[in-house]
């Protein structure tokens, strides 16, 4: 008698191996379908958004509140001593400040002359809080508490302070997933600010502990790039807006082919203690 054919009066049960088989096919199908498309992510992320995200937000806000309180207790003693010395410094700085303000007028005039705009200020940004981090230990991505309802879309750039954090890779109604530039499977097209030489910056799991990310394929035929140079996102990247600070070169080596260089970059963002991020509400304009 076949185990799935129902006999009269018998309660219908599906044997586990058939269930396993059906779900395996379902999963394999979904992997293939969702590898390059976003067919199911709409409804699924909606359901997940309204069930899981509120709890994540609650836990993370309680967690950060507790962390802040404990930090405060530790810091009170230091703060009293620091306060004294800071008061002294304040007087010195007030004097210096008046002098610097005069310099600033001069600088503004000079900036206009060189037409150097502060580029970041042009981008419209929105702040968001990190509410969950990757469940595994292999990659570095996190979930923030704003989504399509707040106007966030896939591929928008994410910053913290003045540095690049990553980009949005998945969006739900009230949450979105950010893939960090230090994740093992992320690559950013970047350039050296001083010489405009292009390079590829890629994350590497092995380098998490040392706090750096690697870069490669830097063509620097004039040998002008040195350690400490600023690295910004390049003009030719199709995901990242140009001119966002990635970090500073910490090590640079000649490759074995003698044509290109590679090395390590210290990111401008402290990924260990990231709590709030800024999402740039602008997408890179691409030729159709």
């Amino acid at each position, binding site marked *: 008698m076949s185990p799935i054919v129902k006999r009269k009066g018998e309660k219908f049960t599906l044997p*586990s*191996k058939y*269930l*396993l088989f059906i*779900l*395996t096919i*379902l*999963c*394999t*199908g*979904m*992997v293939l379908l*969702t*590898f390059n498309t976003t067919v*199911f*992510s709409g409804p*699924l*992320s909606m359901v*997940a958004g309204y*069930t*899981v995200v509120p*709890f*994540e937000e609650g*836990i*993370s806000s309680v*967690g950060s509140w507790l*962390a802040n309180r404990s930090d405060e207790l530790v810091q009170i003693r230091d703060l009293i001593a620091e306060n004294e010395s800071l008061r002294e410094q304040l007087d010195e700085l007030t004097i210096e400040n008046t002098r610097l303000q005069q310099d600033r007028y001069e600088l503004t005039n000079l900036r206009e002359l060189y037409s150097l705009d502060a580029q970041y200020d042009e981008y419209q940004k929105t702040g968001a809080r990190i*509410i*969950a*981090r*990757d*469940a*595994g*230990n*292999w*990659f570095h*991505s996190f*979930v923030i508490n704003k989504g399509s309802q707040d106007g966030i879309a896939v591929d928008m750039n994410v910053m913290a302070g003045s540095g690049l954090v990553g980009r949005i890779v998945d969006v739900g109604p009230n949450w979105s*997933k950010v893939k960090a530039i230090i994740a*093992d*499977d992320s690559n950013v097209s970047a350039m050296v600010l001083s010489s405009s030489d292009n390079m590829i910056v890629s994350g590497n*799991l*092995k380098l*998490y*502990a040392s706090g750096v990310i690697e870069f490669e394929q830097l063509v620097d035929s004039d040998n002008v790039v040195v350690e400490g140079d600023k690295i910004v996102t390049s003009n030719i990247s199709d995901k990242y807006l140009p001119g966002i600070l990635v970090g500073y070169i910490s090590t640079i080596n000649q490759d074995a082919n003698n044509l290109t260089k590679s090395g390590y970059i210290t990111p401008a963002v402290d990924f260990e203690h990231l709590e709030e991020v800024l999402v740039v509400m602008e997408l890179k304009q691409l030729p159709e």
Partner: protein
Amino acid sequence: MKRFIITTFLVFICFLLQCTVFHALAFGGIVPNLLIVLTSSFGFMRGEKTGLLIGFFCGLLVDIFFGNSIGFYSLLYMYIGYMNGKFCTIFYPQDIKLPIALILGSDCFYGLTCYVILFLLRSRFDFEYYFMHVILPEIVYTIFVTIFLYPLILWINTRLERSELRSGKKFV
């Protein structure tokens, strides 16, 4: 029905803890894998079907929030749950050795599969480094958490079984 609600609740709690609280308690950036503990303990306590269903939903949650494509983690967790279900016949609640060994094996299997599919295929060949710095610490931390989490899961399951037995007797 009661079992369904409590199990769903457990899956949610474990997922939430794993991606929020345990990141604050991480040792060297490594978080324990609570979902593996949950999937495999329900696998060997309740059998193949429960194991594979719980695994499927645990994996689906991870897929939605952190996966590159939906289905990969579901598949992985589902097979882990199913495999653990095979050991249901030799499981006794008094024995702690089998659960620990099974959870250890499951987490090891999880780590190795993740390495092969997500890293080795992208030509990251330094297996020794990844084993020593990701897979092994995760296993150790997971086992450490298991010592506290597993008795809790076992207690919940025993309570559920007892109350099901009681309500079953009413109809006889």
